[in-house]
């Protein structure tokens, strides 16, 4: 099994075509859409968590490439600057995936990067601006 987060760039000509569903139908892959939008220039961008058998994963990715979809690994990552974080916890109810939780004993905020979907809500609202986006 393999699970990876990837960024798909759809060129203008592909924006109106169904493509991602084939990953399920033909290659037996699971996907979770973390982010998707079409820019004003009509380039489509989608961030996916894609998982399945290694062989299927590689074939699925190859299929996307053959259609003209540009693929990047998800390098954009939300990171906590430990020196800046005051462990207040105001980010906790804002986080949609419970990647940020308060430890009931220490009352410190725990950040589970694996659960983070890089929505960046915490980046905006963190009072000391301790949540940073790294590319």
């Amino acid at each position, binding site marked *: 099994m393999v699970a990876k987060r990837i960024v798909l760039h759809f060129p203008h000509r592909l924006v109106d075509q169904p493509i991602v569903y084939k990953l399920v139908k033909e290659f037996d892959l699971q996907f979770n859409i973390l982010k998707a939008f079409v820019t004003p220039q009509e380039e489509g961008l989608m961030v996916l968590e894609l998982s399945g058998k290694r062989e299927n994963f590689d074939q699925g990715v190859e299929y996307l490439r053959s259609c003209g979809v540009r693929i990047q690994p998800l390098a954009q990552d939300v990171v906590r600057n430990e020196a800046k974080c*005051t*462990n*207040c*916890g*105001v*980010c*906790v*109810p*804002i986080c949609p995936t419970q990647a940020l939780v*308060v430890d*009931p004993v*220490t*009352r*410190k905020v725990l950040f589970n990067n694996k659960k983070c979907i890089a929505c960046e809500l915490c980046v*905006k*609202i963190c*009072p*000391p*601006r301790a949540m940073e986006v790294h590319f």
Partner: protein
Amino acid sequence: MKTIKEINEKIKRGEVVVVTAEEVIELVEKKGAKRAAQEVDVVTTGTFGPMCSSGAYFNIGHTRPRIKIGGGTCTLNDVPAYTGFAAVDIYLGATALPDDDPRNKVYPGEFKYGGAHVIQELVNGNDVRLEASAYGTDCYPRKKLETLINLKDLNEAVLFNIRNAYQNYNVAVNLSDKTIYTYMGMLKPGLGNANYCSAGQLSPLLKDPFYRTIGIGTKIFLGGGIGYIAWQGTQHNPQVLRGDSGIPLVPGGTLAVIGDLKQMKPEWLVGTSMFGYGVTLIVGIGVPIPVLNEETVQYAAAKDKDIYAPVVDYAQNYPHCSGSALAEVNYAQLKSGKINVQGKEVPTGNLSSYSKAREISEELKSWIKKGDFVLTEPVAKLPGAESGYTFKMLKERPLIEKEA
């Protein structure tokens, strides 16, 4: 019965018994208030939250030839400072913002840099850019000044916060159908989240609800250094509704505090951006409570589940000063991560760091135990519940009085 003088003698002899405002809870539960009052000499409190009415004044030293910044203009890293004093005295408020910061112009605005950040940079030892302009007079001929300044070179640098350490605070929610950006953080529509801002059972004025030991002149932990309570804070409101334990059920008393900025530390004075609202300073404060008698220790042992805060709608009720609290919840419920408001389970977030408040209470405890910090007698009392001192709304009057 003990006196502060006796406690100080114990501190000097290295025999003092100090516990934090958390530890005293268990102690009183186990041994009772009478035994605890005999055994414990000092209870240390702590709080670490955003406190907007904060700022610092500086005397930057005279230039050659002299300039009278007083009455002129002055900015520090583009953030305007107040100049309405003598020649080279200025005051920088925590919430001051650069004029025309483009980052703040697109709603809701980022508010990434302001007075609080300048204060933190100065405390961190960074050089800060000062630009000033003046009229130029016979005795102060210079009209312009552009220079780097550094905290260590200033004559005086004094943190002087006119309202800190609120005794209790609102829990903010949003009843409207759109996201709002407030000084209590981002509030999601339809009771999406509830933000509170207090250290609860560690917070100084919640542990001495009638200001029996905390008063004007009390020596405190301030921003990682030593400070003093200078006065009651602005909006001090001792006459608010109190619960059976005497603890205010709504925001009550406040403190004005003062201390030498040069001995403070950047980790305890943190410049903060409230998205869509503005800039503020997170201030670390710890107040020692001398255990003079059974009553003091009983008050100091109040715990989260006995301290209640009002849940207030910040979409309509707060801005328009209308309506009443939607619910009352205690800090144990708030700390559990969810509260119930109007039948809905609402996730909670704290703007005030409990873990840092705990660190402050521990730090102050260690200072006292080591003999580095002796207690002071208050020189005057803070206005109490019986004083008649109260907080009023502004009664607006037309600029031109109507003729009779």
